[in-house]
């Protein structure tokens, strides 16, 4: 879109008007003062508070948006701005020239630069205004009782819960380092309640849609009278204003200075660690004065160092809620397993391990580093039991297979790292074939080990890393697990084995 500045107000201009400019070329965008007598549109207020949207995302005529701007209730920001001569995408922070391209734009009539990195959320180009709210914040009416959840926390959870609450109240950053199966979600409830009671807007962001879908009903049950917006690609709550938002990390790109507290789940996981835009999005989405709670089972080396040297505020929950120690992985050398697989064979110790599970009717997950090798192993193992299945990210039947595994319809499931986190099967053993592969990082290996021994009734499970050469990552993963168990004993969070 092109604009002209008239009387210190931005007015849409036509493509033929020589005085008009694409929004990114306007040196500074004036913000008209708020007109207290302007009857603003409540739907726009609910839609735009704390957001940065494109015109296409707003189901209201442009004229009305413009009149809100002219009366000081809406802000326009440049979709792409320049740092010196370098373009930067205002929404996702992209500065990498690989992720920019340009096109002859029929909206502004010029060759228009656009960002390819966040194009899945709608195209941002040099003539795209990002639209936000500048008026009063919608009022939320609080129920007399905010939290309905009545459960009790373990000792470890309680300590973390108190620290999270303090951090949220005092707008601090805090890391909760909780082992797989510690019960992270419950730890958040007290903090969320405190935030809601103070009429704060709070968001739980997680990398994956599955987790959003799983968390939403749990939070709605814990806070039944609080409006919850559940956001992921294609969700229906897109336009819902709610004091409590549960979103995929990608959805944070649509928010700007929105939240008094953000809880970032699985900060160690893909894609958050790889895509800089998501880290940028999290920073953009929080208010300048706000709290940030990080949740993870496996912080990276840098964060671990910061924790141990006192540079990062953190709380560990070293023990599972069932008070049994984490299964410690065993290392087993299995020779050149890839070569064996090429000959349609599996290393004898791997085969022995699998046969033992099938004979004793113990379900197991077996991780492989790559799909083609896993597909090679599948027919070999099906000779033992034809109902063995394999699953990977692009498998159309992924959900069904995981469901079948849960209902014990599958004795053994071969998988890529796709099932390394988030899924819980009550009573399984876990093996990794080819644990030396670079895809199995410390964090991936800790997560994989965390699949075993999840339920109270079956707190034990065997975890074996079959490898062709032990790696640093494997050693670090085991060390982290041992360390957590030791801390659990020290703090009295584990029961003695009888």
């Amino acid at each position, binding site marked *: 879109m092109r604009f002209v500045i008239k009387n210190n107000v931005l007015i849409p201009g036509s493509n033929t008007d020589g005085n008009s400019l694409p929004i990114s070329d306007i040196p500074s965008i004036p913000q008209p003062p708020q007109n207290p007598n302007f009857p603003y549109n409540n739907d726009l207020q609910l839609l735009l508070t704390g957001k940065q949207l494109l015109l*296409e995302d707003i189901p209201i005529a442009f004229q009305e948006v413009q009149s809100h701007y002219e009366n000081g209730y809406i802000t326009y920001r440049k979709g792409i701005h320049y740092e010196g001569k370098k373009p930067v995408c205002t929404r996702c922070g992209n500065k990498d020239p690989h992720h920019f391209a*340009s*096109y002859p734009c029929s*909206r502004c009539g010029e060759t228009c630069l656009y960002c390819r990195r966040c194009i899945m959320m709608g*195209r941002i180009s040099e003539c795209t205004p990002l639209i936000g709210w500048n008026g009063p914040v919608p009022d939320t009416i609080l129920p007399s009782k905010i939290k309905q959840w009545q459960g009790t926390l373990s000792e470890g959870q309680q300590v973390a819960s108190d620290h999270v609450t303090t951090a949220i109240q005092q707008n601090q950053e805090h890391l909760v380092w909780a082992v797989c199966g510690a019960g992270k979600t419950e730890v958040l409830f007290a903090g969320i309640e405190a935030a809601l009671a103070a009429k704060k807007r709070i968001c739980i962001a997680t990398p994956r849609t599955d987790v959003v879908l799983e968390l939403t009903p749990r939070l709605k049950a814990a806070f039944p009278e609080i409006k919850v917006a559940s956001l992921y690609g294609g969700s229906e709550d897109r336009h819902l204003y709610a004091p409590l938002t549960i979103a995929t990390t990608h959805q944070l790109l649509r928010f700007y200075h929105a939240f008094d507290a953000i809880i970032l789940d699985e900060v160690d996981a893909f894609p958050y660690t790889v895509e800089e835009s998501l880290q940028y999005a999290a920073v953009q989405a929080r208010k300048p004065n706000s709290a940030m709670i990080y949740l993870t089972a496996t912080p990276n080396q840098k964060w671990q160092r910061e924790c141990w040297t006192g540079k990062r505020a953190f709380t560990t929950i070293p023990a599972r809620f069932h008070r049994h120690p984490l299964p410690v992985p065993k290392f087993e050398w299995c020779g050149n397993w890839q070569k064996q697989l090429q000959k349609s064979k599996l290393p004898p110790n791997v085969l022995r391990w699998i046969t033992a599970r099938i004979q004793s009717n113990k379900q197991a997950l077996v991780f492989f580093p790559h799909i083609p090798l896993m597909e090679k192993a599948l027919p070999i193992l099906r000779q033992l039991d034809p109902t063995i299945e394999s699953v990977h990210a692009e498998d159309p039947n992924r959900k069904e297979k995981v469901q079948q595994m849960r209902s014990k319809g599958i004795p053994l499931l071969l998988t890529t790292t796709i099932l390394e986190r988030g899924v819980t099967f009550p009573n399984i053993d876990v093996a990794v074939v080819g644990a030396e592969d670079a895809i199995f990082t410390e964090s991936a290996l800790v997560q994989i080990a965390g699949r075993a021994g999840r339920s109270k009734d079956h707190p034990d499970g065997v975890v074996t890393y079959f490898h062709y050469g032990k790696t640093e990552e494997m050693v670090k993963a085991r060390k982290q697990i041992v360390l957590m168990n030791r801390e659990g004993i020290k703090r009295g969070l584990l029961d003695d084995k009888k």
Partner: protein
Amino acid sequence: MDFSMQNRCLNCYEFILPNIGWRAIFSVEKEQLICQTCEGKLERIEGEQCRICSRPFQNIDEKFRRGDLCHDCFRWEEDPEWHGYLERNYSLFLYNDFLKEIIAKFKFRGDYVLAKIFSEFLKKRLTEITPDIFVPIPLSKERLYERGFNQASAILLEAGYQPNHLLSRIHSEKQSKKSRSERIHLPQVFQFLPDIQLAGKKVVLVDDIYTTGSTLRHAAKLLKEAGAASVQSLTLAR
């Protein structure tokens, strides 16, 4: 050549490993825009196909084939109102899941630069067709504003051809939301903008996808009636 800009795949951002060999050293090789994995997922239309619309026969049932025509083209040609307007359609690739994804990203998400993926293939075909005039299927004014660019013009421009905007479109519902019979029995959706002598000219219409052929036939009819010697068409996908 700017190495930092050229060695990533336009579609998947993976690094493209250059082919090192005598040919690469001694000849000017055209720049690689997409990686081999992505290029491998594009399926060329090959083998026996419909004389008019290039629909490949190998994947369709015998009963949908009428001699050297597919059932659809047969029905069009049988109708005296439509007979003979569209001489021939060429399509570059099968509209498989991969291409569907690329075209959706290109057209609906508006990732303009993806048009470049097809440039070399388009050029090759167009040198065979040797048309005089290149006419992109137009978008309505409203749709053009919404998308920011016309995908058919983009394909032409990026391949180095100057599109001739001879047609305009009356705003209506998106084609992809209509059934075949709705599309065929539509009143003329295009208008001819008469600012060029068409008499005796060989015209090629360009569009992204050939689905029922209705769009192209409506446009072809108008151009033929305006005096074009022949109208052929070229689409990315079929």
